[in-house]
């Protein structure tokens, strides 16, 4: 049972990543963390050694050599961008820098960051081109992808059962159900589900927003690239955590669109908690 799992936790991806495996498989935990650390290093907006930094430093229209994992995430991002009619956009770095949610990168003053995810061209498994200048931020998708990579690393190490949880982006490996408590936007725990062989992710404007000076900024942007305010958390289950993670962003802005996309992507909106109204 889940209570017998060995759990370890490291600060990665700007959150706490927890990996749990049965006793006897502890050595595989390092493989899982190594996979997460690799995604962190390649896809961090904050680190100048990352692929995102290489992409924003290169002149628009030039091919940039990046990690195959970055290509995989960019491919998924491009696919979701197309399927969502442009609503899912990883080229929101400029807006997030402007609102203070992301730090200004060193090259920030050089560019007129007008590109969208639609301007990303995947050349091959190791090269991508930004046809127009853009600041890519993978904050809405890379955590889920890192969870998937960790689960794959554990599966390769023949771990029969595991839980990887990156600050609520969570995936269960194996048939043993794991209980996951669902949190409402105000932080209270309002329910629980059991999950096996699948992933779950939640998002809400409320626990993502930051108070900056006098104003409050949200990392979630709607179709007009204006910050959106959903006062309710959304929770999505999917086969892969990268899909669950990314789709929460779409579901916050347009739940009906997210629902129809999930029909084909393999997943569903599990919960849109309704907050109790004061009588």
């Amino acid at each position, binding site marked *: 049972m889940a209570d017998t799992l060995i759990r370890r*936790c*490291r600060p990665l991806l700007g959150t706490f990543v927890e990996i749990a495996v049965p006793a006897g498989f502890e050595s595989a935990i390092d493989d899982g963390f190594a996979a997460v650390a690799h995604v962190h290093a390649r896809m961090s907006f904050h680190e100048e050694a990352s692929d995102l930094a290489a992409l924003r430093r290169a002149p628009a229209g030039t091919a940039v050599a990046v990690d195959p994992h970055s290509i995989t995430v960019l491919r998924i991002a491009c696919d979701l961008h197309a399927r969502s009619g442009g609503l899912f956009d990883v080229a929101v770095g400029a807006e997030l820098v402007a609102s203070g949610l992301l730090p200004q990168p060193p090259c920030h003053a050089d560019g007129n960051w007008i590109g969208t995810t639609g301007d990303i061209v995947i050349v091959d498994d190791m090269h991508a081109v930004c046809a127009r200048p853009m600041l890519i931020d993978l904050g809405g998708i890379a955590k889920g992808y890192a969870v998937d990579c960790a689960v794959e690393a554990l599966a390769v190490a023949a771990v029969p059962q595991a839980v990887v949880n990156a600050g609520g982006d*969570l995936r269960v490996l194996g048939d043993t159900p794991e*209980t996951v408590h669902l949190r409402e936007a105000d*932080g209270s725990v309002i329910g629980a*589900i*059991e999950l096996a062989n699948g992933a779950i992710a939640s998002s809400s404007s409320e*626990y993502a927003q930051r108070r900056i000076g006098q104003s409050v900024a949200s990392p979630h942007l709607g179709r007009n690239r204006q910050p959106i305010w959903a006062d309710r958390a959304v929770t999505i289950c999917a086969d892969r955590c990268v899909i669950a993670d990314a789709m929460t962003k779409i579901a916050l802005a347009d739940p009906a669109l997210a629902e129809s996309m999930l029909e084909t*992507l393999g997943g569903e909106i599990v919960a849109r908690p309704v907050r109790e109204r004061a009588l």
Partner: protein
Amino acid sequence: MTRIPYRILPLAALALPFPAHATVYMTVEQAQAQMFPHQALTQSFRDLTPDQVSAIRKASGESPLSKKLKAWRAADGGWFIVDEVVGKHEFITYAVSLDAAGVVRDVEILDYREAYGGEVRDPRWRRQFIGKRPGQSLKLGADIKNISGATLSSKHVTDGVRRLLATYATVLAHG
């Protein structure tokens, strides 16, 4: 489409305060054995002087929470340090290993305690679940291991590691 195998667990109808979420990942001894396998560690605790505290604050922008530096010296010249940080709603103990040159090798969370301050509720939101099926009731008071939704930032641990590097340079690098 694929059906994701999940089922809803109804919560008890009573609103009960949730216990504080406390998770212990590793003991100090387990972390030592993992970071410095087959190596003798020699306890080398220090009391930071006011001058050292201000030097650390100046170098890292962070003030030590405690004047007691809990450090162990490894046979290969590396260091093992146990430290604590306080976040907005949580208290975190973590371990850092440095190599003989003072470069960070590993960071592991030993334990953290989080107070939710929220209450378990059983509102009508469960009706909105798709494909809902009755499950067994949840044991309240059981340790909560998985919570959806990211609330904890690891920034204070990152700040703590930066402070420990300044502490190493100020206090430990000279033996």
